[in-house]
């Protein structure tokens, strides 16, 4: 990754617009992810429970194991790539301060927790949905702020 080699990213006329573009798209992805989840899978416990297990009163079928595993598999790949690239850029631009380290660890660990609890909710107990929802929102919010701060540092610091 070239941006790990450039000494001052803010003064690099090539890397600055590249990283800016990447960060803007990351913001768009994080926002879109919430809207897409809301209209398909659900972002609140009741809606997620209905998506996973169905609802007899509303004649809705739950997710089959194959569909769930495919959804989970794709989610893992996207989240790991988004969270990792975002954290790398943020660490690089924040000079690896203690606050940056804390924010990145919270983002990565809650993203990981959201994936693990989603599987636990499907296979073990619907109670894990509450942890999934909390961790889903925490990692999205932290990632959103890390991206915003990275953009600010890139242009105004």
């Amino acid at each position, binding site marked *: 990754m070239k941006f790990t080699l450039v000494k001052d990213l803010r003064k690099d006329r090539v890397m600055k617009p590249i990283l800016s573009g990447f960060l803007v798209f990351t913001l768009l992805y994080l926002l879109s992810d919430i809207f897409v989840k809301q209209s398909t899978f659900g972002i609140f416990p009741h809606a997620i429970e209905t998506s996973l297990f169905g609802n007899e009163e509303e004649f809705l079928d739950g997710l089959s*194991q*194959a569909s769930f595993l*495919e959804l989970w598999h794709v989610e893992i790949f996207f989240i790991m790539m988004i969270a*990792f690239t975002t*954290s790398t850029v943020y660490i690089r631009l924040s000079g*690896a301060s203690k606050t940056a380290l804390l924010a*990145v660890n919270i983002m*990565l660990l809650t993203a990981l927790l959201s*994936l693990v609890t989603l599987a636990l909710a499907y296979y073990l107990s619907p109670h894990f949905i509450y942890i999934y929802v909390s961790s889903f929102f925490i990692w999205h919010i932290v990632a959103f702020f890390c991206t915003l701060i990275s953009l600010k540092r890139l242009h105004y610091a």
Partner: protein
Amino acid sequence: MHKAYKISILIFALFTLLLLLSGYMIFELKIGFEAKNVLSYYMGDAKLFTPAKTNSGILKLSLPHIFAFALLAMVVLHFLIFTKFKYNFFVKVLIYGAFISAFFEIFTPFLIINVSELFIYLKIVSFFLYILLIPIVLSLLFVSITQIKL
């Protein structure tokens, strides 16, 4: 390597293991690990009323995997540059092994339906090789980051 990157890499390793686990579970559920399971999945099974896979059907499933396998292998393997194993011959074996096994894992279904049913064995071997090699790379990273002496 900076401490901040070390922690990120360790968490990234956990994500990677989770991805491999989900891939393993999908393979087990949808195809199965026995040769006859793989054969019936690709060639169809009259008893189970499952149709044979077509070239376009396989290509549709392969397309995202071509990118994903390569990206995952590249990201995981490039961390080895920061380790003491950088110039080790074993690392070269891991790099070539990961990409070659990924290639056969993705493209053997075409060989199964177009050339010979015997390629089911290559499909199974390449799948297990890929999900074995990536954790080996991750364990080398773990050893290097935590500075455990081998």
